[in-house]
């Protein structure tokens, strides 16, 4: 078989497929041609959390991911501080979601809190694209309106290379890839189960969902979390000066300052090893935060009071840890709230 001849035929087939897809896919999936570069969000946002702030008349709102959810008891914190606290933990979130929570939830609430505490770790604050695509996208959509130019620019458009931008706009096979994958996934997931064992869509979803809700092996989970953290430890992400202006951090600070909100950044502890380069990054971040007005930093990353007994894995607290950490946190926040 002559490779040159196969290549020529391959190009012809490929052009044929691309052309056919170019006509059919935009029509089939209702995608404009050229497709917009930016991700599109639904207009509405989740309003339960706005209600929560208003009903609790929260003066301190806590934002973070599952580390906040597992690590802080907001009711206990309220009683220890004597200040109404309300936590908005969004498991699986990153700084893009936190920016949206600040802009679209906290600032839209009738009751304006005086303090907002953001729970972060390593380089999360300056990696705008972290946890924004794939399975994380719907989570962002919960807090995004249909007009989020900054979110689109920082988390999506600025992260795309020229080939990706071209493909997204002009190659419908690429711009419709999420829809095509979903169709393929649905075909593989539901049709055979229905034909073979008479299990309908709901039955299949329940069955598959049951695996994902299982108790997990903590050693394996730790390994996976370390693998995931590699994104945050990439050399370019640990260059604070280069990253900060392209991140949500300055915008979050500006939003808070314009609305008389004090921002408290809470750096949580990670059990285990961290890259040496993170020390420089953390130093730069700390200096940056301390230069800002109405911004505070609480650093638990090397706190000896937080021991292995507190944690179920390298990030998350157990019940005992949650109780103890809430006390430690209250103690640290007390002095800031008194200022």
């Amino acid at each position, binding site marked *: 078989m002559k490779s040159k001849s196969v290549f020529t035929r391959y190009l012809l087939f490929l052009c044929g497929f691309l052309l056919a897809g170019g006509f059919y896919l935009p029509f089939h999936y209702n995608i404009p041609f050229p497709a917009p570069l930016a991700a599109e969000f639904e207009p509405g946002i989740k309003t339960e959390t706005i209600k929560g702030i208003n009903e609790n008349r929260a003066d301190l709102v806590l934002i973070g991911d599952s580390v906040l959810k597992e690590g802080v008891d907001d009711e206990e914190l309220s009683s220890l501080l004597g200040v109404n606290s309300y936590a908005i933990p969004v498991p699986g979130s990153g700084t893009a979601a936190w920016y949206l929570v600040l802009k679209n939830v906290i600032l839209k609430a009738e009751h304006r809190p005086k303090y907002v505490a953001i729970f972060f770790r390593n380089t999360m604050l300056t990696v705008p694209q972290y946890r924004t695509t*794939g399975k994380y996208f719907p989570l962002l959509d919960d807090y995004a309106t249909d007009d989020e130019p900054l979110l689109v620019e920082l988390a999506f458009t600025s992260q795309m290379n020229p080939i990706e931008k071209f493909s997204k706009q002009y190659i419908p096979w690429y711009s419709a890839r999420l829809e095509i994958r979903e169709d393929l996934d649905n075909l593989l997931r539901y049709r055979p189960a229905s034909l073979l064992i008479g299990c309908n869509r709901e039955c299949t979803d329940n069955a598959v969902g*049951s695996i994902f809700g299982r108790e997990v*092996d903590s050693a394996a989970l730790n390994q996976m979390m370390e693998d995931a953290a590699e994104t945050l430890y990439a050399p370019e992400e640990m260059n604070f000066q280069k990253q900060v202006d392209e991140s949500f951090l300055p915008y979050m600070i500006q939003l808070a300052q314009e609305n008389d909100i004090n921002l408290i950044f809470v750096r949580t502890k990670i059990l285990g090893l961290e890259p040496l380069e993170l020390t420089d990054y953390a130093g730069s971040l700390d200096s940056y935060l301390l230069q800002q007005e109405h911004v505070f930093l609480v650093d638990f990353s090397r706190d000896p009071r937080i021991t292995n007994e507190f944690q179920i894995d390298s990030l998350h607290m157990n019940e005992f840890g949650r109780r103890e950490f809430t006390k430690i946190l209250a103690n640290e926040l007390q002095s800031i709230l008194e200022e």
Partner: protein
Amino acid sequence: MQFTSYAFLLFFLTVLVLYWAAGGRRWQNLILLAASFIFYGWLAPWHSAVLFASIAVDYFLALAMVRWKPRAVLFMWLGLSLNIGLLAFVKYYFTFDEILAAWAGGFGISSDHFLSFIILPLGVSFYTLKKISYLIETARGTLQPARDFIAYAAYISFFPQVFSGPIDRPQKLLSQLETPRVWASSHFYNAWQLLLMGLFKKIVIANTVKVFVDQIFLMKEPSKVFLIVGGLGFTLQILADFSSYTDLSRGLAFLLGLQTTENFNKPYLALTPGEFWNRWHISFSSWLRDTIFFPLRRTLLKMQRLPGFLPEIIPPLVTMFISGLWHGTGLTFITWGLYYGVLIVIYQWIGIRGNWKPANGFGRFLAWLMMFLLIVFGWIIFRAPSMPWLWNALVYSPLYRSVDELTASLVLAIMIAFYASLLLLKYMLELAWPSRENIHAFYYAAATLLTLVFMNSSSPDFIYFQF
């Protein structure tokens, strides 16, 4: 810098233009060497410094072996100690770090001082094997040491294979680097199918199957049906992932006018464990065979006092044990290696060796099925988070806990079968219509579209980087 990243595309295109524009062997090798060090030091520049130092040491040791022949063995052992020492340091760094932190804690020194790690260099396992081959063969006198340092350094650090092989012998790759290369269109026509299939296997198959394989091996106590489905999924994932790296590596090498070793030859069609290792990670298994298995066997055969069965048993066990150890420091890897050692011994014991083949089709099918199941079980050992986890799953877990589990297993098995069929289809087309160009061109075009559709779906890391 991943082969599948945009940064790598820009990097490689720049190298390619400079490389072919330069002309002349010396300039080409120099560009290759510079590119390899930039590529290797992308994460941390000191990685390249370590690589350069270790290359320089081996280069001079090999020359010294020829210059002072009576001391060649001494120089060889010095080189082997340094190389294996570096490999052991990288493999066991985290164990050392934790021991040191615990020890310091005992003296009241905060272990926080040690709770930071350096980004360890990748690919040490691969280039160390190249260097060991080079030292041993030079000491044996079967290889003349390279005089051209640039060519030798480019051979060891060759960027398309520095992280995950193939582990090319000096006779194969170094000899090509010592001869002039001229651009020919055949370089491109040899490369494009490999590059395309590499991207397809990685992006469409390996990354997709990884999602549910990870989920199953993350469960605390999976039932046996999940273990089976997870094992089948990982069997597909690791082949697609590792062979995709080899395809990309070989495709890139072809574009540079260099032909490197084919690493996989339909390994899951093997009928015996010996045949599996002749088809899987070929450059590594042939390295093990020539560097450990045969020399050990020859040595044992010379020992007349030894019982006759020991030279049959010890070499496969030791070789496979080392193979397991090379893959990782965990007990699962060592068990996996020994598992293959024991399988080879058992197969030999019942008279089944190497390329054994039953006479009739049904016999061949049974032999294949048996071997395939043994391979899947081997991958379950390999992928298990720990040995206690595996033991619990094998011994104490029920076959299934609920109808939901059976349904979910069926759905996942269908997905695995679908993604496996994409690879199987290619094998079948090659078998049924080896010269029907339209069919093959159609397959490649469809594979390109699927790659486009599956881009950015999940983790881009290659499994074999960690070894």
